[in-house]
């Protein structure tokens, strides 16, 4: 089982109560947990998946998913996990305006602590609810303005949850491959970086598009 080609760290952030823990549980255990309470500090889970790369081969990817506590008093713990993250999932509750308003603060945190090359995904959770307060467009635009991918999910019904993590895995593999192809040198890696942004559409489109990264170069 320990046979994997890639190991990526994925960190979930966002206000308390937006459903980060539920998203992770839904993905790693296939359940929607009831009454588990707010996360204390950080928790982490591991899932190994098989992802098809742009060349059509299947590859084993180990995702190390860090589920951080949204409550303010855990900030000094959670901040320490940004630096080593390969991907950051920023979650808000689409039925709760304040969680969306807080996004700017979260973006500031990311800028301060995360690697500037980190893959960023904005997630509007709880699509199953009928009291939506944030229209899809608004979320989409915010993501676009901050160079993030965008997706709406429901950890309750499982909508887009698999897709979220599989797309992240596929994208990270693609990045790793491009980086390996270029140079291990630090100064050059920004070239890879430019290729992966401004690509919201591929996350929005159907997941059958095997690799997100395939049309990256043409977009630049």
């Amino acid at each position, binding site marked *: 089982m320990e046979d994997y080609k890639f190991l990526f760290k994925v960190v979930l952030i966002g206000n308390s109560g937006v459903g980060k823990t539920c998203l992770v549980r839904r993905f790693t255990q296939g359940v929607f947990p009831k009454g588990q*309470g707010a996360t*204390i*500090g*950080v928790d*982490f889970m*591991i899932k190994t998946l098989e992802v098809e790369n742009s060349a059509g081969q299947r590859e084993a990817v180990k995702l*190390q998913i860090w589920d951080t506590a949204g409550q303010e*008093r*855990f*900030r*000094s*713990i959670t901040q*320490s*996990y940004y*630096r*080593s993250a390969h991907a950051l999932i920023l979650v808000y509750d689409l039925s709760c305006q304040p969680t969306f308003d807080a996004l700017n603060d979260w973006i500031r945190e990311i*800028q*301060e602590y995360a690697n*500037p090359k980190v893959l960023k995904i904005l997630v509007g959770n709880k699509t199953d609810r009928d009291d939506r307060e944030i229209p899809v467009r608004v979320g989409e635009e915010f993501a676009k303005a901050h160079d993030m991918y965008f997706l709406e999910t429901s950890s309750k019904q499982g909508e887009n949850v698999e897709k979220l993590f599989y797309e992240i895995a596929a994208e990270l593999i693609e990045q790793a491959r491009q980086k390996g192809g270029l140079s*291990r*040198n*630090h100064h050059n890696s920004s070239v890879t970086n430019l290729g992966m942004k401004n690509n919201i559409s591929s996350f929005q489109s159907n997941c059958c598009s095997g690799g997100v990264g395939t049309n990256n170069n043409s977009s630049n």
Partner: protein
Amino acid sequence: MDVSSLIGIGDAEDLETPEGIKRLCQRINEREKQVNDNLQTLLSRKLNLETKIDSCLIKYQQLYKASICEDSKKLTSIISHTSDLAEKVSAKVRNLDTARMRATEVQKRVHDLIDLQLCSQGVMTAIKDEDYEIGARHVKRYLSMDRNILEKTADDVSSMTSVNQAVDTLEKAAKEMREIVKVKLDEAIKKNDLASVERFFKIFPQLGMYDEGIAKFTSYVCTKLSSIAEKELRQSMEIAKAEKRTQVAYADTFTNLLENVLRIIETNQPILENYYRYGHLLKMVKILQLECDDQTRRLIQEFNKNRLINRKVNQINDYIKSQSTQSSSTLGHLRKASGSMDKLNSKDLDTLIAELTIMHSRAELYVKFIRRRVSNDIEKCFIAGDMTEEEKKTALDSMESVIKKSQLSNQMQEILSTYLLFERYFMEESVIKAIGFDSHETGQLYSSMVDDVFFIVRKCIRRSIGTQSVDGVCAVINNGGACIEQELINAFRNALKSGYHSGYIDLAQAYSAFQSTIQQGKIQTNDSEMARTKFTVTLNNADKSTEYIETLFQNISEEIKVSFPNIDSHKKEMIESCLGGLKSVGDSLKTVVESGMQQLRSSAIKPRINPWIDQFQSSNHMLTDDELSVYEAGETFIQFLIVQLDGLLNSFKKVLSEKNYDILVLMLATDVTARFERAIKKCAFDRNGGLVLDKEVRSLGTFLTGATSWTVRDKMARLTQIAIILNLEKISELSEYYDTRNQEGPFTAWRLTPNEIRNILKLRTDFKIEDIKKLQL
């Protein structure tokens, strides 16, 4: 079935009088004895039968072997007969069992009836005499009787009224007792009469008032705790001063506070277990926790106020904010020590961090103690059978929720948060300072910053282990990695950015150097000397850091194993992952070393060695025997080259760390051999020329091998093979060396392609082109 008929008592006895009951009891006992005797004989018969069955089975097996078919039929009937018999016997036994059970039941009911009378009489006297222990015992006895059966008994016996009367009396008495002990306990509490408090606390469970007893008693204890705590908090500073422990005054007070609570549990748990049995500790803890929460809150408030925590937190946050806006514009540039550290006083911060660490670890220990005690109590209750599996789970969950929802937990999280902020700031500022105050002593390979930076990071991580919090340790490990990467590695990168200015200047370089000297009036030998030293020292520092990272990783892993011996595998994995992140900082360091060495190669090696080697082209490689002896008598090309290379390497051997020097030698070997090969290809050779070349290549190999502990054979492979080819007597000799099937020997694999071999052969003027072309390769 009626009891009396079953046990063979024809007519109803007089159950009104104790004598009558006693008589009945006697007869029941006699009858029971009879029944028991009967049972005994039947049971012995049963044993007999079982032996028979056994022997039948043995016979059956024998028969089976002999004549199966006929005998089996017979056997079947025997067995079924036997089983019928057994069936009948066991039915009888069953009947007898029932009889015995009923007899016991009757006995119990009779006892109950007797006790009922006794209790109802006794309880009133006890109350009158204020002998509450006895009274409570009577009530307890009454409560232990099954009310329904009591009523049924009352129906069965003719003197219903007397039973009911007794029940009434006892009900009333129980009610009265309950009232009395409540009042008495309250009075004792009011009078602060500990002996009486404990006396009545013990009576409560006998009257079935478990929760109330625990609640009243624990609240009483809490008031005592509270006054002690208040006093201690008021005096904390004075006590600390007297003991010269002002730096940890609040940690001390906090420790006392928690220990006081734990002591209450320690002393009262035995009483609780004795009089209340198991499974009640959580109730006590729940109430105590509220008190503990209250005291903790007050203490932390005081701590925050007197240690100026909020102001420091704000100061640091402001500083971080100002740094982040600054650094985003000047990304990659070296941060300067802010000087705000002086405002905060790093020594102050250091002691404050230590105090926070102690506070958190004490709370962590306290919670561990509570968890262990309560879950043990629940487990004992479960084992005693007073609790179902389901109830046990609920109880344990309830314990967790008491802990999780407590103010104490909340305060611990706040403390940890403050600690982490301070620790991070302390680490970053100290590291930046250490880098800023870097000092290098002439002649040393390394400067002070690496030792200093790793000392600081190690100190901080070790201190985090002291919090006893896995989350805390993980965060500081993460921050340590970030700090090394951001501050130290960036400092290395900056130092290497300007490159290595080789002291050797060729004409073009000399010209431009001359120009810039004129323009800026500054480049002096001293300056460039210093710049070169800075470059090599940085390379060595980076090399040493890769070792230090590995050591740090190993030491911390070890220490965590010792300090957290019982953590679950999940938390362990978490820590390991964070440690892995720290270790991977080593990769960034290796990249730094690598790129620095490449710079050294392109500026200090390549330009120097090229002209030396190119001299090879200017000498003659077609030699008569006389010319050969003359050449070998004088200074040969290779002697010259080795002297030069030796001089070059020696100048670096003094200034590079062992590993870096080895890397340099390998780089040099790569470049020298490549250039040499290039030079050879530009020359023409005859037999003697080849002979000389072969010797010279061998000398070069020996020299390079001696220069490093790493192997250079690989680097020499192509050159060696070229020399072999050029040193051939005849072309046909090549087959002795060139044999693709022969994988043994010094030339396991040819590094030269057949085409290259042919081209090299062509350098020998005495070899014929046609022969070369004819070669089978």
